[in-house]
């Protein structure tokens, strides 16, 4: 898995489309947030918006690219070989989706640098150890959510488009840029089952020092494990079904 992750991280880091999406998404949304929050009543949330827009960039790439990961391998004629290999298939797919989200570290760098240099919004990190732990935990969580998505849509030929459906909903529900308190009350319990909610809370708390981030990190990691198990089970079910029908290369 480590080797798979390293190979895919290098490969995805050289994809100009991925890199531009990762850099431009946070820049555009941080800019929109900057103008809106500066023009509105609340000017205190810009630092959190910088983190949130970085997380949006990571999710934006992961949701599309992870859902499409299997379709790409199917198109390249590799899917049957990978499924037939003695390595469990979840151990092949998970490093790909985690690598895709890990490339999102560029998104965090771009967002924080951009808001600091252009808008003078510095991120005052109050709890460095928690922040350093929260960043990989959040990236891992988004990667595993992408894995779950990829596994769930393994049967869809247009999985990339299905993945695209989840871009705005996850941005909204997880409170990446919008405080969850502003959303309808029924959304809050829904947001709890999304690990990025807890990852975002952890990064914000660690940066702004409002409260301890470690509880959020723990929940984030717990949900990440749950996604991994659920994704592996789904993958097993769908692959068995495809193998039985002989449709692995066709669906």
């Amino acid at each position: 898995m480590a080797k798979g992750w390293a190979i895919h991280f290098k490969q995805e880091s050289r994809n100009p489309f991925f890199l531009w999406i990762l850099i431009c998404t946070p820049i555009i949304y941080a800019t929109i947030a900057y103008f809106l929050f500066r023009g509105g009543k609340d000017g205190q949330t810009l630092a959190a918006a910088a983190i949130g827009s970085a997380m949006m960039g990571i999710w934006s790439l992961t949701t599309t690219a992870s859902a499409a990961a299997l379709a790409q391998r199917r198109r390249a004629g590799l899917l049957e070989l990978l499924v037939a290999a003695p390595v469990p298939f979840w151990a092949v797919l998970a490093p790909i989706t985690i690598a895709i989200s890990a490339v999102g570290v560029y998104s965090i760098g771009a967002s924080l640098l951009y808001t600091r240099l252009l808008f003078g919004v510095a991120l005052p990190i109050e709890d460095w150890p928690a922040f350093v732990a929260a960043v990989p935990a959040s990236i891992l969580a988004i990667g595993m959510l992408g894995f779950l998505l990829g596994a769930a849509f393994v049967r869809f030929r247009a999985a990339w488009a299905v993945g695209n459906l989840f871009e705005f909903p996850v941005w909204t529900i997880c409170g990446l840029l919008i405080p969850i308190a502003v959303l309808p009350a029924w959304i809050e319990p829904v947001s709890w089952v999304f690990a990025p909610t807890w990852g975002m809370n952890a990064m914000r708390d660690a940066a702004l020092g409002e409260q301890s981030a470690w509880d959020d990190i723990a929940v984030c990691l717990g949900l990440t494990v749950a996604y991994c198990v659920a994704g592996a089970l789904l993958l097993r079910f769908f692959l068995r079904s495809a193998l039985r029908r002989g449709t692995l290369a066709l669906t």
Partner: protein
Amino acid sequence: MRRLRIFAIGGWLSYRAMFGWLNPYLFVIILLVPSVTQILFFAYLGRAAGVEDDTFYVVGNAVVAAAVPGLFGMADTITDERYTHTLSLLVVSPASRVALFLGRAAPVAVNGAVVAAFAFVVGSLLLDVSVPMSALPALGLTILVTGFSCTGLGLVNAALGLRWRESALLSNMLLYFLLLAAGVNVPLDLLPGWLSTIAQVLPVTHGVEAARDLVAGASLVDVAPLLGAELLVGTVYATVGLFFVRLFEFEGRRGASLELA
């Protein structure tokens, strides 16, 4: 007659082929659903920031929904030809380029208007935004004009696809820029002066303003100058796009780079 056939039948087939070879459910999941989730995202962002009301975001994001088919659809008319190795065949054909590309642009522009109308209706219902019934015909016209102007920009985007392989990336960048600078989500008076000046030559800017005025009770006559400006912007982009198609096609043939760019 031949030009008319290329325009109508060629354009229609090209449009249908964009949806994964005639698969209608892609239309729903690529265009319709995201247009509504985008409205909800920005409406709640606006509430959080305390800037403008829901009507502002419903109208802005519904109108800009016309840009998605315009930008991506037109770019795909080039990139998909390259992907299926038919671009060279297209380029060597004697068919009129104006008929060919305008034929491809027409259904995309109508498609953009349909998506924008859908987003407008569903967004208004979900966020309880009231629109005067008398404004609906003028709003329909505004959406159609904006769909045309976005397709004009899409034509420039498609032409650039003859020289640059990453046209999907360019489509994304243009869409992002419209979201930021065309007065869709950030009021123009909150933007720096240079950015709001650029906004005047972007598609969507005048269409959004006209749509907001109509929802606020203005008549078609009141917004006619704005619609005229939107139409002019679209026409200029479409003309520049057709010129670039010719130019880059010539360059591609000379450098034998059509399949490589």
